[in-house]
């Protein structure tokens, strides 16, 4: 644990990855959060979205699911997905300490989002680890 410092340059690089890999395929919102539920960086349309609450709940949701995994003797569930009427939301663990949240409509195939998320995971992790 400890303190994580995000410089201007780091924020720019992280956001660039989210833009290039996720917004480019039509994802409406991508948020990178830490284990404490802080928003590190977000890309896309955050208008009308309470990202602070979303981040806190996403972190809690993951924590709870990890406990469920334990009860079931699973290693961990590293991906969570919720389908809504209008928006779909996908949560993916990035390393041990971070979570990537993506929000997208039915126009974007889930498989494509999954693929891109797994591709960006290492890229984001490398950037975060440089700290």
């Amino acid at each position: 644990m400890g303190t994580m410092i995000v410089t201007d340059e780091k924020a720019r690089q992280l956001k660039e990855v989210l833009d290039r890999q996720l917004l480019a395929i039509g994802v409406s919102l991508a948020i990178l959060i830490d284990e404490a539920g802080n928003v590190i960086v977000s890309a896309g349309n955050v208008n009308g979205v309470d990202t602070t609450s979303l981040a806190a709940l996403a972190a809690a949701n993951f924590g709870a699911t990890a406990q469920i995994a334990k009860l079931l003797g699973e290693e961990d569930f590293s991906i969570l997905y919720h389908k809504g009427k209008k928006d779909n939301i996908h949560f993916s663990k990035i390393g041990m300490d971070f979570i990537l949240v993506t929000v997208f409509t039915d126009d974007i195939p889930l498989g494509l989002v999954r693929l891109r998320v797994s591709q960006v995971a290492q890229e984001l992790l490398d950037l975060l680890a440089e700290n």
Partner: protein
Amino acid sequence: MALIDLNRKEIHCKIVYYGPGRSGKTTNLFYIYNAVSEKYRGKLLTIETRGERTLFFDLLPINLGQIHGLNIRLQLYTVPGQSHYRATRKLVLKGVDGIVFVADSLRKRREKNIESLLDLKNNLRDYGLDLAQIPLVFQYNKRDLVTANVPLLTIEELQEDLNKELQVPYFEAAAAKGIGVFETLKEISKRTVKFVARKYVFSSEKVRAQGGVI
């Protein structure tokens, strides 16, 4: 885990109100929420079961002014106190930067206070944190009941039970009336931000070396 965001010029700290069930943790957050103007607070998020018991946590984000040109943003969390929610409490503690332990002054809750503090210590240890190292203050709540006809613990007893070794600041409070709420918040904020900022100043050497902005 505190987050220092030089891009948005913000410092984020997570403060957790811990303590046994019904000691007044949620009451603290509600009072703060109602007393702080909208400009300085975010949405109050509560996850509760039927019968107003906290199921997972409450969360209140507030803005606290500036330090080194950075806006201080605190996330105030509470935990569910009931003993069988241990796993949930531990989740909420993840990445904690500062703790308010809200103890119940009711004499019949004496054991629950002690148990809860031990539970806190164990949960922190599982995260590699030491209760004696992390910013911490005590709040001895429900002092208003002194005038009612219910047996209360004295401050000396509470100190002896909980704060004998830790020797951190404590506040007498009646959270339901708002008494002591901001005193407690002010002290834990000061301690937490100081603690986090010290690490920041320390690690800023490295950031500069990498061509960062500070």
